[in-house]
């Protein structure tokens, strides 16, 4: 802790000097007497040189939250000696906003007194930030002297992308071998009845179709479709983004990826993630709650890292991109390299769905309403439409997503289109 004289002292000392000068020039005692209260106040700095003692603790209500969640910060100060004026200030990172209370407060404490300073912050966007650096100023009542200290108790807070519930999802065309929620075209153990066939030794009695057996005069059994899971790989475009902080195309894509991951994992599917950008990163497909945490952690650190080096999807191991996986790509289609990667996946026989967020709508949010900007947006929208039409001609399923539309509504046409087109697994 360092003690220092405040900026208020300078003007007071200057006024004292001026009054003394005027007193000497005019030869009047009053001007000397004017300085006496000022000098007594200045002297008080040297006289009240006590060392304030206190204990400070800092607490944050949660270490892991979702976007738009609120965090409560509590700072407790216990005074061991008299503190006339205690100023506390905690700087906030740019990704949080003050929701209630104040992150700068002034208190007055008697010896042994304890105060609890509480305020709430709202997490605006996904990411990691640190809270816990409290700047403390112990002021003299006169405001002429202060002691400064900084308490560091770094507490890392992770803000995950907010998910929205998805009741219906695009159905993968191919299923895997593990048990899941999709009706597989192959017969075996399951609930969904498929076909009937003559009874064979080894068939269970409970599979006998008594109605057919009575009508046809011999035993028939009902075959059931297997219920299998699928592999879903979410491919996030981190080559570029457009939009304001915490509402950029990357943030919206990360939210969509988190929502899709949660929904598919709740259906017992295996979900993986590929970040396709300047730095190629991935999470191997897996299932269950630990996988959800892995995916959410990966989405937390998804950032645009620009690079001129084109990343080849051949670098991605097969276990990360299984051959029969449904690939859901999330991109604003700003970089041609991502479009080429999509073409590569289609050529390799992957079932690919491109969910493309409209960057034009996102840009309109921060552009002026000038005719030039409006014209540029219209031209951009036309170019984008042509690009999407070209991709559709290549056989890619492209879903256009406007930022104001709910994800479930965006995915609805795809659900109806793909329902009866499941391929044998």
């Amino acid at each position, binding site marked *: 802790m360092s003690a220092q004289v405040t900026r208020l002292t300078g003007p007071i000392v200057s*006024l004292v000097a001026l009054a003394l000068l005027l007193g000497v020039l005019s030869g*009047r005692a009053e001007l000397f007497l004017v300085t006496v209260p000022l000098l007594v106040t200045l002297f008080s700095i040297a006289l009240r040189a006590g060392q304030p003692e206190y204990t400070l603790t800092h607490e944050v209500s949660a270490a892991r939250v979702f976007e738009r969640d609120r965090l409560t910060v509590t700072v407790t100060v216990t005074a061991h000696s008299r503190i006339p004026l205690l100023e506390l200030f905690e700087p906030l990172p740019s990704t949080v906003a003050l929701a209630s209370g104040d992150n700068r407060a002034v208190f007055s404490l008697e010896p042994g007194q304890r105060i609890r300073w509480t305020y709430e912050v709202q997490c605006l966007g996904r990411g990691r930030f640190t809270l816990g650096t409290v700047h403390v100023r112990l002021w003299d009542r006169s405001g002429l002297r202060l002691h400064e200290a900084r308490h560091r108790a770094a507490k890392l807070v992770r803000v995950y992308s907010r998910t929205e519930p998805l009741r219906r999802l695009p159905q993968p065309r191919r299923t895997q071998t593990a048990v899941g929620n999709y009706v597989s075209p192959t017969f075996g153990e399951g609930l969904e009845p498929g076909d009937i066939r003559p009874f064979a030794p080894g068939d269970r009695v409970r599979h006998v179709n008594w109605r057919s057996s009575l009508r046809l005069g011999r035993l028939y059994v009902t075959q059931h479709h297997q219920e299998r899971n699928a592999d879903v790989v979410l491919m996030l475009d981190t080559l570029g983004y457009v939009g304001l902080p915490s509402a950029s195309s990357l943030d919206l894509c990360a939210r969509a990826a988190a929502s899709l991951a949660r929904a598919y994992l709740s259906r017992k599917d295996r979900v993986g993630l590929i970040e396709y950008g300047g730095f190629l990163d991935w999470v191997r497909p897996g299932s269950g709650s630990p996988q959800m945490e892995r995916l959410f952690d990966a989405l937390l650190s998804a950032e645009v890292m620009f690079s001129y080096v084109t990343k080849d999807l051949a670098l991605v191991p097969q276990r990360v991109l299984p051959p029969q996986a449904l690939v859901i790509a999330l991109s604003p289609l700003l970089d041609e390299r991502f479009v080429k990667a999509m073409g590569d996946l289609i050529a390799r026989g992957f079932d690919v769905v491109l969910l493309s967020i409209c960057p034009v709508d996102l840009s309109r949010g921060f552009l002026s309403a000038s005719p030039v900007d409006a014209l540029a947006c219209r031209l951009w929208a036309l170019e984008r439409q042509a690009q999407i039409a070209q991709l559709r001609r290549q056989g890619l399923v492209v879903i256009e997503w406007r930022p104001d539309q709910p994800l479930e509504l965006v995915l609805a046409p795809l659900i109806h289109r793909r329902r009866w087109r499941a391929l044998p697994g």
Partner: protein
Amino acid sequence: MMRAFAGLLALVLIGLPILIAPSELTGALGVIAGMLCAAGIGALSVPLLAAGAALSLVVYALVLWPSVGPPAPLGAVALGVVLSLLFQVVGFAAHFRGAAVDSHVPPGQVRYWVGNGIGTAVVGILLSISASGIALRLPLPAYPAVVALGALAVFLGVVQALIRAPKGVRPTSREDQR
């Protein structure tokens, strides 16, 4: 509230010298000083306030210059107290602008200001009385010189106190101890 109180103090600071000997010059300078003080209080700017206060001191000196009567210590001490309080009030408001001030802070601060005002006024009056006592045994021309020497000694003492400001204070934080 703080601004209103500071405005009242500024009014006294500017009005007191003008009331002693009103004239066109002191009135004009007083208006300028008032504008500077008002700007300083409005913007909570100590430099602007200091400029206004300096001008009011000049007005006070101009008012006193032609007078040949005995010194009026009460008015001078009152002016000094007002000046000291004005800077403390504006400094307080400027330092804690935008911060959440606990309800216990303003009463304690007002108590301090009242105590400080009374204390400094008493010291000023005692000093003027003792100076008058000394002045009775000294020739008249030596009177300002004695006060000037005393004030200079005090001023140098304050400067020395500021240079030798305490550096080491012992904070204890649970996080720091970990």
